[in-house]
């Protein structure tokens, strides 16, 4: 931001010393214009970034553990994900939030083919592969091959359900509760849950 001494320049931490593509230059110019036109303040921008960095798959793990432990909560979570997630005190973006349950005969996996929509406000930043053109193009067309590359081998008795997050809904997979976890505390159960299981690129949660 050489030669630019507005206040909002000081709150900006570039990933690179200089913009390294035309797209990056356009993005920076747009940001400056939006701030100067008063659409948002640098402080609001910082707060959004901080909130996203604070969110993590651990939050998804706590939600899954509650659903495993409390059938009434699970029913509410599957019926209206956003309301049930806010019930636990999480602030999530005003999207409809849809929780898809895996069971013995169904495996759910999430993608955004058009861009890279991801429930950032709940799970934090998305993994690089989720944004890759390869994952986005292939998981809708050959989900079983992609899942196998992640180590998920599915028999023909399990149906794959791919969810293309193309518009205003956000998704989370509710993994199957692992066997031999009867009587476990919610805290201990939550620790079993991984980011990939919440996206659907992992099916089995190891308990040891």
């Amino acid at each position, binding site marked *: 931001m050489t030669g630019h001494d507005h206040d909002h320049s000081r709150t900006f931490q570039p990933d690179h010393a200089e913009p390294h593509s035309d797209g990056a230059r356009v993005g920076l110019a747009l940001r400056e214009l939006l701030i100067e036109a008063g659409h948002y303040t640098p402080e609001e921008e910082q707060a959004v970034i901080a909130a996203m960095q604070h969110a993590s798959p651990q939050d998804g793990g706590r939600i899954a553990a509650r659903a495993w432990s409390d059938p009434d909560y699970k029913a509410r979570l599957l019926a209206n994900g956003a309301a049930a997630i806010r019930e636990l005190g999480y602030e999530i973006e005003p999207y409809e939030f849809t929780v898809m349950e895996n069971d013995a005969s169904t495996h759910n996996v999430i993608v955004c083919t*058009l861009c890279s929509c991801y429930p950032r406000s709940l799970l934090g930043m998305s993994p690089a592969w989720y944004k890759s053109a390869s994952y986005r193009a292939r998981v*809708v067309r050959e*989900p079983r091959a992609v899942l196998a590359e992640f180590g998920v081998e599915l028999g023909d008795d399990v*149906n*794959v*359900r*791919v969810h293309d997050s193309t518009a205003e*809904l956000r998704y989370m997979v509710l993994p199957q509760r692992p066997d031999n976890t009867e009587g476990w505390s919610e805290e201990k159960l939550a620790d079993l849950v991984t980011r990939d299981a919440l996206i659907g690129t992992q099916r089995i949660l190891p308990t040891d």
Partner: protein
Amino acid sequence: MTTALFEVGQRVRIADRTPPAHHRVPGYAKGQVGFIERVCGLHGDPEKFIRGDGKPPRRIYRVRIPQAELWQAYSGATGDQLEIEIFEHWLELAE
């Protein structure tokens, strides 16, 4: 709230068109037929954001399409499915 035009279980066709504006229907879904899986809420129309405020809002539906109908020579199980969010003005009842 306007009334939803479609209900769960109805068979619908996704329009095959390419408006000269940002829209949220990927090419592979255009012209495809599926079932309404879920009736969702009203949301800003992406095609009306480029010049305007996304109004009037449009209802979103989740449409379930069998994978075997979506892709030629699909190699997975016959029960495999894809579910996708489609705005109401992209849907019509299918035979």
